[in-house]
């Protein structure tokens, strides 16, 4: 069973409000991913980190979304100004990040964001 912990499980925000969610990756996993899963089960990769450094991020993340993975603190994903289209399940995942069999990715239970 995955040991990736996400909080809160549910988040309700008004349009224009900030929305922040947190993730504690599995112990010893230096690589962290954030994905957005919409109601049509489309997954969108948002950003990933190795230790505290950003590896890749999509354009959407660069504009309204911000994320960080500080050392000795939970990772976080924040939407600066929520829009209705941001309503989705946000999944955090972690991995050892090394090649071959170390590439398994483990997911948390997600934060379901509803923007009203």
């Amino acid at each position: 069973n995955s040991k990736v912990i996400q909080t809160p499980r549910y988040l309700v925000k008004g349009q224009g409000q900030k929305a922040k969610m947190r993730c504690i990756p599995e112990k010893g996993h230096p690589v962290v991913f954030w994905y957005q899963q919409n109601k049509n089960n489309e997954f969108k990769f948002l950003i990933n980190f190795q230790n505290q450094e950003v590896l890749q991020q999509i354009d959407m993340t660069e504009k309204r979304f911000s994320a960080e993975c500080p050392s000795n603190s939970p990772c976080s994903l924040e939407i600066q100004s929520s829009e209705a289209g941001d309503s989705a399940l946000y999944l955090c995942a972690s991995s050892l990040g090394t090649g071959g069999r170390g590439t398994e990715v483990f997911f948390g239970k997600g934060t379901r964001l509803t923007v009203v």
Partner: protein
Amino acid sequence: AQSVTQPDARVTVSEGASLQLRCKYSYFGTPYLFWYVQYPRQGLQLLLKYYPGDPVVQGVNGFEAEFSKSNSSFHLRKASVHWSDWAVYFCAVSLGPVYAQGLTFGLGTRVSVFP
């Protein structure tokens, strides 16, 4: 760019019957392939993974999958379905070291199990 297609959006099966879920990928090369399951109000749980090697891989809870390079497929099978298998199943592909590329998912197959 790589892509994953799960042709069946919904599958209904009787408890105790066999199950096959189809997955087709598009990539010029040998990918790393995964099947995940998502139970209601849960995250994704890894069922099994394929790395270059034996084309038939065994997973948890009696699931197995078979990789076919010629058909660009990675179909999931279970010999006897249990009511607890009621969930959405996702096929995913990675081009290699996951930390660099992450995963590309299909749209999932919703499995309903009836007595």
